[in-house]
């Protein structure tokens, strides 16, 4: 069930891809959980380490920890900690792989984060499609541990693109549909049951567990000065197979992709990410400082190289159709805008678009941006705008009824089942 794993940085993932499923083996390798016995002392180490969230937003981890601690002291309630392994992005497999290969590292991080903010309950959230393998293993792993201070509950995210968004996740755990709400009040103030809640990506917690053991100095040994440490990437080279790689931040793109000769463009950051022409991508490094020059970010570490025999326009239209269908249907601009954008890009890809369709699409991308409760319209608009830029030559070709692709098989993974009823969001 595990994709190929390669790592030159054996921090989170074992070098040979062997699972450290067993609690004894894990303890033998990493030692026992280094509890600090004082709420908050770990937060200083995390601040010094420069660890940021690995779920996509790259928010400084210590600030969330501090905010939850402060809010729970002020409100005199015990917060909840949630390890987010929902990984609802179809192109990503790094969290499922981490939870499969090194579950105890994430669970250690969950315990340490719970201690740091004074939490009395913890949740581990995983994707519905991985409930059978990863979920079952996690249940075993949780039962296997004997040094936990707080009980960990396993929760299963419905297979919806937005289900991993932190407010959607909390709505789901509260018994509602997994749809996002406006970000305010922050979940660090009012999350699960209305109490302060810490939501951290599963990988972030694994890093936290290592920093607690080896210190912030060790964490900063790799990566860049501004963006220290390593991250897990889901990399698709021209063969299309996902590879999970642990990379130092700042790794040059060509080192990761290899054989850029057969590649036309790179998708950086997943389906809310950015298409970049290969010539520009070859000069980039995988850190936000470098990627921001092309409007991209490391995000959740998704990197896909589009092979020369495929059509980027057709791929983008397929992905946009999926994104439109995954709109929660709450906010007008997203509900009305995304389907129209999808129809327009599909028409452009089929070479049957009336004049002005491209201009409409660009205008709509601008109109939906910043106008949703969550960032679904923004991320989708960014993806579409980058596709129109990167595949401009292909657009012209399609306008003349031609296509540069010789291989019509779909390249990037797109789930086929869309939500039809409220049940599909529960």
């Amino acid at each position, binding site marked *: 069930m595990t994709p190929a794993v390669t790592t030159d940085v054996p921090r989170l993932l074992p070098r040979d891809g062997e699972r450290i499923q067993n609690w004894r083996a894990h303890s033998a390798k990493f030692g026992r959980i280094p509890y600090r016995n004082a709420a908050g002392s770990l937060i200083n180490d995390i601040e010094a380490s420069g660890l940021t969230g690995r779920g996509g937003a790259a928010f400084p981890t210590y600030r969330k920890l501090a905010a939850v601690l402060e809010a729970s002291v002020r409100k005199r309630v015990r917060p909840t900690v949630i390890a987010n392994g929902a990984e609802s992005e179809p192109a990503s497999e790094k969290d499922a792989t981490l939870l499969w290969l090194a579950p105890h590292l994430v669970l250690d991080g969950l315990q340490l984060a719970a201690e740091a903010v004074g939490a009395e309950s913890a949740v581990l959230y995983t994707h519905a499609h991985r409930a059978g393998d990863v979920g079952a293993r996690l249940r075993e792993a949780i039962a296997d541990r004997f040094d936990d201070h707080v009980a960990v509950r396993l929760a299963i995210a419905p297979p919806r693109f937005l289900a991993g968004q932190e407010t959607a996740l909390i709505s789901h755990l509260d018994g509602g549909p997994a*749809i996002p709400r406006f970000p305010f009040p922050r979940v660090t103030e009012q999350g699960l049951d209305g109490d302060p809640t810490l939501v951290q990506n599963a990988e972030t917690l694994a890093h936290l567990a290592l920093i607690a053991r080896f210190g912030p100095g060790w964490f900063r040994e790799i990566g860049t000065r501004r963006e220290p440490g390593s991250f897990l990437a889901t990399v698709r080279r021209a063969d299309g197979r996902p590879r999970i790689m642990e990379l130092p931040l700042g790794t040059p793109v060509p080192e990761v992709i290899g054989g850029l000769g057969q590649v036309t463009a790179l998708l950086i950051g997943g389906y809310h990410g950015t298409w970049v022409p290969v010539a520009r991508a070859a000069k980039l490094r995988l850190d936000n400082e470098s990627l921001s020059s092309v409007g991209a970010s490391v995000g959740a570490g998704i990197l896909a190289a589009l092979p020369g025999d495929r059509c980027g326009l057709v791929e983008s239209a397929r992905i946009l159709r999926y994104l439109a*269908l995954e709109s929660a249907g709450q906010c007008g601009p997203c509900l009305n805008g995304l389907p129209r954008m*999808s129809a*327009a890009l599909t*028409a452009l890809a089929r070479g049957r678009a009336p004049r002005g369709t491209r201009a409409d699409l660009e205008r709509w991308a601008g109109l939906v941006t910043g106008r949703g409760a969550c960032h679904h319209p923004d991320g989708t608009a960014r993806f579409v705008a980058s596709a129109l830029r990167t595949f401009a030559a292909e657009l012209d070709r399609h306008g003349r009824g031609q296509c540069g692709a010789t291989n019509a098989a779909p390249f990037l993974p797109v789930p086929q089942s869309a939500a039809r009823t409220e049940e599909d969001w529960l």
Partner: protein
Amino acid sequence: MEIVGEINSSTALWYISRATGVVALLLMTAVLLLGLLVSRQGKLPGLPKFAVTGLHRNLSLIAVAFVGLHVLTAVTDGYVNIPLLSAVVPLSSPYERLWLALGAVSLDLTLAIAVTSLVRNRLRRKTWKAVHWLAYLSWPVAWLHSYGSASDLRGGWLFLLALADLLAVVVAVGWRLAAAARDVPRAERVGLIMTAVHQRGRSR
């Protein structure tokens, strides 16, 4: 009331109370109609949506002010004996016991709606909404109180006005229910729009 005497210092309060009562009923009707419109995110000709909401809010404050004036003048006036307590406690007034009880109930409900709306930021949305729903109870009770306790409303132009209020509210609530029945459940909206726009693209 058959007494159609002249307005002087001893009858002024009584007339003010009757007049403000009529205006309060009109305002409450307008507020309810606007509230129904706001709940469906409807528009008024020439007004943006936020202005409809603003109108609903501001008019409701004016309505509360008129209700307050109506109650205070009725209590202060010495022509009939209405204790201050009877303004809020049902069935405690020696004068028009039943009809004033309806007034008290409506006032209590109105105050609950007004207060929760003023502190809406501090409440959970569910709580605020649950209290706000009491408007559907408060208005008919207020209408019955008006009709029952004021002989002014039982005939002539004011009767037609009261009837028009009732009719407008019945029609508006009917419209609101019919609109809600046509609602597409959230989870099904995107699918419908997708099918529609993709088919339109294909037929070209």
